[in-house]
């Protein structure tokens, strides 16, 4: 079932995979990172965020690491999430698929700019 949920890969799940490519993050961190990398356009709500994380966990595209406190936020212990190799692979192939699309778009003069 998780496989079905991720095919095609929902935008939220892809964004989460991308945020985790750099470092391990907790939920709020992921949310902020997504907002940052989309210029504030995408703010994942808790429902969407955690259901996506759940799906990704079930599909073993990410995994939970040991919970610990965020030095900046302090106080509570938080669950952190890390990209698995399968997740990295999926993010990679999805990026390539998008890059292909981008090429097509540019060749059709829909999007200006250099071929990547």
């Amino acid at each position, binding site marked *: *079932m998780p496989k079905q*949920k991720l095919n095609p890969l929902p935008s939220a799940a892809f964004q989460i995979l991308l945020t985790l490519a750099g470092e391990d993050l907790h*939920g*709020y961190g992921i*949310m902020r990172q997504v907002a940052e990398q989309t210029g504030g356009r995408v*703010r*994942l*709500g*808790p*429902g*969407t*965020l*955690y*259901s996506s*994380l*759940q799906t990704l966990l079930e599909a073993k595209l990410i995994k939970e690491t040991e919970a610990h406190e965020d030095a900046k*936020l302090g106080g*509570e212990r*938080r*669950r952190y999430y890390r990209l698995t190799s399968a997740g990295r692979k999926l993010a990679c192939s999805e990026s390539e698929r998008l890059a292909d699309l981008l090429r097509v778009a540019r060749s059709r003069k829909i999007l200006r700019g250099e071929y990547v």
Partner: protein
Amino acid sequence: MSEKIYAWLLRLYPSRFREAYGEEALQLFRDRSRDETGFLLRLRLWADLLSDLAVSVPREYFHVQPGLASFSAHLHPEGAPSFFVFADESLGPGALFFGGMLSIAALVTFSVLLNHGVKYVPLSALIRPAHSSSKARSSPSFDSSAPKTANNSAEAASESKQSQPPEAASTPSQPAKGAAGRVHGSAKLEVAERRRIVNAAAAILEKHYVDSDSGRKMAEVLRVHEKKGDDNQSMDGPAFAALLTQQMREVSPDRHLTLDYFETPLPQQVAGPTAEDFARYREVMQRRNCTFERVEIWPHNIGYLKLNSFPDVSVCQATAQAAMASLNNADAIIFDLRDNRGGEPEMVSFMAAYLFDHPEYLYNPRENTTEESWTHSPVAGNKLADKPVYVLTSGRTFSGAEQFCYDLKMLKRATLVGETTGGGAHSGAFHRIDEHFGMGIPETKAINPYSKADWAEIGVEPDVKVSAADALETAVKLAQTRLQKK
């Protein structure tokens, strides 16, 4: 506060999700509300949360079900009926308690509704007590509580409409009532049904209407309208009754003439008083001294009589005679009718007889002039015929008591002290057509010998206008002044 609201909203998610991520979702909420302060950011936060809920809650539930469906299909190939619990944990004690309370509340509500809904109280049962205490004979009378007049019946019906909705509601469940038990309130009337009502109304008009020419004309108009199909645009009971009333008034603009629809079924017959009623009436009257509350001689030899109704002469003649005899030597009389709600015109006449030395005509808008319209004056041995009379009135003084006031005022026999009276001179009779339709029509209308209108609706104006509370004191002063002048 807002965190509590969000925690509550989180309960919308399936328990599986709440257990796994509920705490983290709350944590995220706390983080965001700590970082995003200010009105606009807060607004954006809540907009995010709500849109997130709207999108993700259904998805959470939606994704559970295919799994369960395939699970159940897999387990029961024979198609035996079975139940599946969607949540994977057992019900919490809170849920069990809440469900239990809800069930009990539903059970209690149903049983209460059933008890009240099934009970059927005929209208006659509601009316009878009023009968027994006020009215014992069938002669037309002013009586505020008798159910005879159209207005009173309408009031009774509208009262029971308000106070007894279960009764009305129960009518359809009275199959024993048969065809007559149909409710027209909202249902449309059949042609045959309308024709029957029109014919019945026409017959009543022909037989009873005060002016028989107009009565016939109205009956004809009703029938013609019915034949022409003017009533055909199908309508419910109240609208049909209003239409017929309007048709009758085209002939005679008589506002006492009405055809009414009653939601509550009318009793078979407006029950006449029985011997039992009469016995009860007699007993009540004896116990209450025929409503002669006080009969006293006061300083300056002023006679004071407080009378709270004009009871039936056949029952209370002796009491009335005794009361008047005890006042016979008074130099002035005060009739206190401030709490008098009316009664029998004959008692009005009987009492008034003591105030004249010759038969005097007492106008009664309900009855044409008869022998009874004249007082049986002079009364043997009576010395009150030339004594000053004061009548105390209030807004409660009603009906027959108003006749007493009105006639004594018009004859310039008494000084009225107090408030304008209630204004009850209804002169109609009520005729039942069927369970839901009835007519109020004026049957007799005596010619008023006075140029002034009678007291219907407007009441009787006192000669000395003071509040009912001050009326007695004022009347006593007036009487004293007058007696001193002598």
